């Protein structure tokens, strides 16, 4: 499967999604796979943000932060969708599973957010390590950087220490799939 044909590459470069023109991708199948995984993670996060906002468990200032993070993740998904094309996973392809009490109290809502953004960060980092296309690697790196800020924000809201992880661990596709399995079916 060709990830980035000439036309799409030109389009992406023009759109600023890719910043490195003329770079060959070493393994396009792995690239597509990594992009699909990251896009699905972004849909899961979007579903989480929606449920968190609807739960009524967050303070007003926290809600504003969550709304911003949701907008960021939607932008990540849109960028990945442009890369993947029409076969990008959508909400119709995925089932988001949250425990019945996952949003019953502020503490529960934030704990789940910390968990999911942590998995997302590691999944995106795994993509950075796996993909051959430098443009896609750059995009996944930028998404991982933003996700790291989301994770830190939620850790802080939950009263934790967001500076404790000096080297967040990348997850290979198999590991990320296992970590996501309870939430993404």
């Amino acid at each position, binding site marked *: 499967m060709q990830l980035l044909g000439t036309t799409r590459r030109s389009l992406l470069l023009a759109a600023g999604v890719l910043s490195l023109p003329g770079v060959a991708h070493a393994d396009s199948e792995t690239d597509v796979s990594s992009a699909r995984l990251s*896009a699905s993670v972004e849909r899961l996060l979007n579903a989480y943000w929606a449920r968190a906002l609807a739960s009524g468990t967050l303070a007003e200032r926290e809600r504003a932060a969550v709304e911003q993070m949701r907008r960021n993740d939607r932008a990540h998904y849109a960028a990945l969708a442009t890369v993947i094309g029409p076969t990008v996973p959508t909400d*119709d392809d*995925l089932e988001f599973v949250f425990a019945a009490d996952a949003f019953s109290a502020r503490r529960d809502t934030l704990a789940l957010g910390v968990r999911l953004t942590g998995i997302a960060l590691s999944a995106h980092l795994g993509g950075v390590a796996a993909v051959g296309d430098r443009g896609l690697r750059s995009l996944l790196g930028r998404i991982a950087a933003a996700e790291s800020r989301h994770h830190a924000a939620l850790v802080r809201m939950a009263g934790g220490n967001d500076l404790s992880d000096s080297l967040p661990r990348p997850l290979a596709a198999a590991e990320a799939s*296992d970590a996501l399995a309870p939430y993404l079916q």
Partner: protein
Amino acid sequence: MRRSILLITVVAASLVPAANAAAADQLTVLAASSLREVFPQIDGAQRFSFAGSDTLASQVRAKVPADVFAAANAQLPDALFAEGLVERPVVFATNRLVLLVPASNPANLRSVFDLRRGGIKLIIGQRTVPVGSYTRTVLANLGLTSVLGTVVSQERDVAALTTKVALGEADAGFAYATDARAAGDKVRVIKLPAWAQPRVRYKVAVLRSSGDRAAANAFIRKLTGTAGRKALLAAGFGVPALPAKSRAAARR
């Protein structure tokens, strides 16, 4: 004795027209192999012919006498519609791909990514049959097409594939989640990551050559109605979302 023989003759004679009428009313439904368990539950009165969807599509093109075509994908019915051979197809079910292993799991597979180990005897569907096409899609989505090198057999339909896995003729095979249910405890299921799943959509259409298009359309209404959806869900299929109007009606 003579009265008994006469009575049997009279009863038998009275049944013949009824039987003929039943046969004449019976629709011939060409259906994907993966529907072999659930379709007779939804409407046991019809005559079903189960096979790979591509084979059935060829039969439609060859003008085999039939009334309804139900495929395990959208492409084949859509193509037949474009050719003017069927009425507009509708989605009636969804499915998921899984990795089946024999109950004894001789290769000790725990994840689809274990297929990378090599030396695994893998069965898949032929490229032309939907399950084979979906398998290639899911392997590409997972970045695992290299495992196609370990394929020992390519099957014409998913029923044959499932049987071979159940009999231990392979270490693993890609099939639908519903086939795993049908095979019972003879197989184990390894779920595939949701993010790599292909869009498995079943479409059904009435053949334009059907001798009774009204009855064929009634069959499709039954399939997509409340009872049909319940039976499909009970068999492990998914069903498409109802239009808003239908949802409101269902709530009333």
